């Protein structure tokens, strides 16, 4: 195995976990991790949460420290982006001109914030949040009393709004869709989230298009289609992400809403794998429907599985239940599974510990569970509910709705 060289492009969650897993699996050849950012691999979830609120200048939360990289003998090439893949010569070329040969290659290139296309003289001055540097730039402008406009009512937008509120900014959130959290979060939870934000003083403009964004001596002006203006000092747009597929596309790999991989996370070239936000894969728990996930746990788990599969000893399909979480104020929101195709929703009221919603298919199969509550007792219930969904259980609806029936007891029935 020592003649093999493992190369990973992208030093985020998926890439870093893959590098560590290759060693954990006993691979003893060279491992090279290529990242375009100057930092050691770091966790992105805190960027929209604690790191926007920290009073002291925040530091990235490193996934792999220098010591750990040395210990695992992982070569990190940071601040030097991969610019080209030569599949016939099995070489990755970097921006610096350096060439890195590979036996197996993992693409963990992530996704980039979708840019807002809009008229106006300040359309190019919006902030986007993906990298540590983005978080620092936003944090520096979130001064107490600053007027902040957040465009987009998804996780990034809402977390940023909550952080801005914590920094004592005056926050308006603009969502052009009919409600916040349209993607993957049921309306019951979206309502709870919106109520919590309103309680914190966030204003909402929902279901209204943005006409233009201009700047004058008083700051920025967001003009909405209903004719109103929102004046602000800082605009952050969180309107989704686009998978980073340039390298894959340029070398002729199949692309389908991201880099196309099979259930083993292998691309159309058997020597190249992909993992995390950049790839779409067929999910066996959802009729092999091809999905792409932008989620921390998925990046971590796919990175780990891709590493195992690259070594080819005991390859296994990737079949983890999708799982997302978001922290806003004192509340944590979680979604496990995919609710598309659910015909019934059962509510389980945990009182002060929050609420769970079970989304069942017509045949009674539990497809997804979502919930929100204060971090704490809620987490325990949510985890048990997630395990029920992992088992693709068909639990009795009346029992799910009854908080005096323990989920642990229900779970045992499906062992």
């Amino acid at each position, binding site marked *: 195995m020592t003649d093999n060289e493992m190369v990973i492009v992208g030093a985020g969650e998926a890439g870093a976990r893959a590098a560590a897993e290759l060693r954990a699996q006993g691979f003893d050849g060279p491992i090279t991790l290529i990242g375009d950012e100057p930092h050691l691999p770091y966790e992105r979830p805190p960027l929209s949460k604690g790191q926007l609120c920290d009073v002291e200048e925040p530091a990235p939360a490193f996934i792999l420290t220098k010591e750990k990289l040395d210990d695992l003998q992982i070569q990190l090439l940071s601040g030097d982006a991969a610019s080209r893949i030569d599949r016939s010569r099995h070489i990755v070329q970097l921006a610096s001109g350096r060439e890195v040969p590979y036996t197996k290659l993992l693409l963990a290139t992530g996704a980039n914030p979708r840019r807002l296309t809009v008229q106006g003289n300040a359309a190019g001055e919006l902030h986007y949040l993906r990298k540590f540097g983005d978080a620092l730039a936003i944090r520096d402008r979130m001064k107490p009393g600053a007027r902040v406009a957040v465009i987009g009512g998804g996780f990034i937008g809402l977390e940023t709004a909550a952080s801005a509120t914590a920094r004592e900014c005056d926050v308006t959130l603009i969502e052009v869709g009919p409600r916040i959290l349209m993607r993957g979060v049921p309306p019951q939870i979206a309502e709870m989230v919106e109520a919590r934000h309103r309680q914190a003083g966030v204003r909402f403009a929902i279901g209204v298009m943005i006409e233009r964004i201009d700047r004058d001596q008083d700051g920025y002006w967001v003009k909405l289609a209903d004719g109103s203006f929102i004046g602000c000092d800082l605009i952050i747009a969180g309107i989704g992400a686009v998978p980073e597929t340039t390298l894959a596309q340029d070398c002729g790999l199949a692309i389908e809403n991201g880099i196309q991989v099979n259930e083993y996370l292998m691309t159309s070239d058997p020597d190249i794998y992909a993992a995390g936000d950049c790839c779409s894969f067929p999910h066996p728990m959802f009729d092999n429907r091809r999905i792409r996930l932008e989620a*921390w*746990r998925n990046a971590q788990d796919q990175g780990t599985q891709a590493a195992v599969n690259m070594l080819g000893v005991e390859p296994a399909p990737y079949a983890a239940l999708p799982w997302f979480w978001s922290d806003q104020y004192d509340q944590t929101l979680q979604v496990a599974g995919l609710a598309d195709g659910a015909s019934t929703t059962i509510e389980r009221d945990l009182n002060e510990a929050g609420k769970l919603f079970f989304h069942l298919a017509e045949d009674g199969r539990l497809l997804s569970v979502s919930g929100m509550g204060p*971090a*704490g007792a809620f*987490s325990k219930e*949510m985890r048990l509910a997630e395990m029920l969904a992992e088992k693709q259980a068909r639990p009795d609806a009346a029992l799910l709705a009854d908080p005096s029936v323990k989920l642990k007891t229900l779970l045992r029935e499906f062992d």
Partner: protein
Amino acid sequence: MTNPQWIEACEVDDVEEEDVIRFDHEDRTFAIYRTDKGEFFASDGYCTHEKFHLSNGLVMGSTIECPKHNGRFDIKTGAAKRTPVCVDLRTYPVKIENDKVFIQI
């Protein structure tokens, strides 16, 4: 450093089987576990990944799972068993006397 001493943490009945509770003592926080076999164990209260109370986590058999990012530890040894945790959890000796749980810290 003072010598380790036995501290009363809770009553046996305070912890259900296959569950965990939080125990705060002076400026420290601990987690007291009862496994599915009814055995008691104790560890530091916070996960080693981020400062988050393990007492809100789920006990399955003799494993505790952090509710925040699903890192897992062996309750008996404190060994880290699943990413993102990579640092073991510190554990403490436990004894039961007169239906009370004591931990040695």
